[in-house]
């Protein structure tokens, strides 16, 4: 009952925000001082065009998505597709070296959402569980135990 309601909320969030991953954890310090490692970001995606200054989350086929700011936009006249360049606020150089398969520009289709809200420190739980999987097992085990022994 708890699990199904959690699933409903998660899928509902995906629908409302229009993004496949409506909540992401900031994993690196590349957006400091604004967003530190361990913060979580709420994303929202719509058909509004991407413009410079927006904070976007993109995944062009890598393990983890990257949260950086758009610094260059080149939008074509005929099909409204845009070539985008991003950079982390705390990085000296833009992300060109990071884009997969030696693309010089990021395509709009790789962008999963724009950051619209944030909560500090809440993401540390996810980071700890990823770095030390034993904590994940302990937590799941304890939760499972609680479900079994509670009387309601």
């Amino acid at each position, binding site marked *: 009952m708890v699990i199904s309601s959690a699933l409903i909320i998660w899928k509902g969030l995906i629908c409302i925000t229009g993004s496949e991953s409506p909540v992401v954890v900031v994993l690196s310090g590349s957006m400091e*001082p604004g967003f530190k490692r361990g913060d979580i970001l709420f994303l929202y995606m719509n058909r509004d065009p991407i413009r*410079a200054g927006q904070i976007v989350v993109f995944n062009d086929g890598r393990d983890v998505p990257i949260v950086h700011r758009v610094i260059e936009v080149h939008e074509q006249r005929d099909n409204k597709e845009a070539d985008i360049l991003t950079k982390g606020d705390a990085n000296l150089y833009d992300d060109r070296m990071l884009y997969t398969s030696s693309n010089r520009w990021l395509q709009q289709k790789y962008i999963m959402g724009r950051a619209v809200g944030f909560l500090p420190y809440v993401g540390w739980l996810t980071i700890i569980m990823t770095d030390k999987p034993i904590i994940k097992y302990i937590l799941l085990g304890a939760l499972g135990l609680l479900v079994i022994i509670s009387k309601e």
Partner: protein
Amino acid sequence: MHSFGYRLNGLLTFAVTILALMCAITSLSDNFNTPSPSAEIKIMNINWFQKQPQGHDEVSLTMNVSADLQSLFTWNTKQVFIFVAAEYETRKNSLNQVSLWDAIIPAKEHAKFWIHTSNKYRFVDQTGKMSADKIVLTGYSLPEEYR
């Protein structure tokens, strides 16, 4: 009914509810504030307009940026990201935005400033070719702030 577990549960739920309410009020209070920021950019000098080693045209400029953004800082403001971008259209692209300079303002005390700087990022077009008769400064828009 009065065991430690129940009390702790009640206390934590109450604390989280109060925290969530405060966050919501902070966000809503932002609607009452009408920001009146002002900013001015003056291009002092075009330093060079040249070909880079790999053949792209590059422009370098020096500019004075002065701004008073104090009214943008509310309870709901985390930081203000300010940037200067060159926005222009070309034959192939209906819109190009190239960021030339940016800065992060973390607090209200730093929000009124004047800076004389050359562009932080290289101004090169996507196609590598640029030509201009004259450069006109038109309307600027200020970026959003994030909660």
